[in-house]
């Protein structure tokens, strides 16, 4: 799917589950891409990559061609992912040290990274490391390096926080992770392109475009200026 496709309103499905969102992301990863999946929800994307996708996974702690999580009998304390979870290696893997790993990230060599977020702005600003709450201990890890380094940054998140406030916003109120770095946002209710041109809605899930637009305090454009209901939608 790319931004020149017309908006599709899927009224027969949605809101999407985390796995359905992960499947959407996986669908949009081109064959043979080098991809970093952030800690948490983005990890699910790996389960939805088709056999033969040729996608090579990077982990910030120094590895390319990371395999799935280790089965109980396979656990090797020397082999973990960025979330410190034991993983496995695939044929064609490579290990390298932290400065090389982040040079790879900062230098723009990863095709895609997939991150979670607290907030994303219509311009593509990302806030995903710190709520700014008093007493909260800040911890950034590799998020800022990934956000500004990967060629494309995909965000996976629910569109609304538990308190009902939208997470796609005009301006992030939480401390930023990166400026104008997000390209695509995958949520339970819709997928968006964001960037200098503002937010474009690519697909909605279980919600018509107009209703979605009314619930968000962000200027929105339907993809390609047109709105299309898929065949069979009510």
């Amino acid at each position, binding site marked *: 799917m790319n931004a020149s496709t017309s908006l599709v309103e899927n009224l027969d499905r949605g809101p999407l589950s985390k796995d359905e969102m992960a499947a959407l992301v996986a669908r949009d990863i081109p064959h043979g891409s080098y991809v970093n999946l952030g800690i948490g929800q983005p990890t699910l994307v790996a389960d939805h990559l088709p056999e033969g996708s040729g996608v090579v996974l990077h982990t910030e702690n120094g590895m390319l061609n990371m395999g799935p999580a280790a089965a109980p009998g396979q656990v090797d304390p020397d082999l973990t992912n960025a979330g410190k979870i034991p993983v496995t290696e695939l044929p064609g893997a490579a290990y390298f040290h932290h400065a090389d790993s982040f040079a790879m990230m900062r230098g723009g060599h990863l095709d895609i990274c997939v991150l979670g977020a607290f907030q994303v702005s219509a311009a593509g600003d990302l806030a995903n490391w710190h709520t700014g709450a008093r007493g909260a201990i800040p911890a950034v890890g590799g998020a800022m390096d990934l956000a500004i380094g990967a060629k494309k940054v995909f965000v996976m998140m629910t569109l609304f926080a538990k308190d009902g406030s939208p997470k796609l916003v005009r301006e992030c109120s939480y*401390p930023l992770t990166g400026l104008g770095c997000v390209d695509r946002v995958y949520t339970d209710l819709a997928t968006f392109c964001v960037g200098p041109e503002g937010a474009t809605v690519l697909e909605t899930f279980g919600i018509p475009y107009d209703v979605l637009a009314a619930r968000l305090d962000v200027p929105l454009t339907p993809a390609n200026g047109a709105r299309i209901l898929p065949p069979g939608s009510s």
Partner: protein
Amino acid sequence: MTVQVCADADEAVAGIRDGSTVLVGGFGMAGMPVELIDALIRQGASELTVVSNNAGNGDTGLAALLAKGRVRRIVCSFPRQSDSWVFDQLYREGRIELEVVPQGTLAERMRAAGAGIGAFFSPTGVGTPLAEGKETREIRGRTYVLEYPIKGDVALIGAHRADRMGNLVYRKTARNFGPVMATAANTVVAQVREIVEVGAIDPEVVVTPSIYVDRVVQTGVPA
């Protein structure tokens, strides 16, 4: 100069002074030099600045060093973890200073120290609270923030194997910060699972050349 092959971890950490900056390898427990940290606790140096990716897990290793009150300041990318209760309490009580640094900037600042670079312009963190107060500059249309080297008085790292000259190899993702920290400290101490004779490591696969390593000690069981 010639590497010192130490009899035990206590010999390996001897002489670390109060107030030192200590680079501590590892990412979570992978590559963490646990025996060296335990020896550092016995050795007694205090008022330390610790540079490490995390701020300790559970009650052992780095967390134990923190719990003893030996660390004045910690420079790391990801202090807050599910099992970082020792750090969390010290921080909330105002008993430890924290400098949060993006992980890649942390690695690159140590690389700069090791590589003789005076400062570098990084795109990471621009426009975020972690760049506040830092010099920025637009170069070829992109904004960068100026970052300075982090140099250690001592580095404590875990590696897989050393030869008796001090050449090191690591294993899988336990490599992480070890090779970078080995370039960035005045005294580099490596704990390894086995020490082999000179010539037993293929020169093509050495990750940390002997020039960077001052002391090695065999700990635990060869894998």
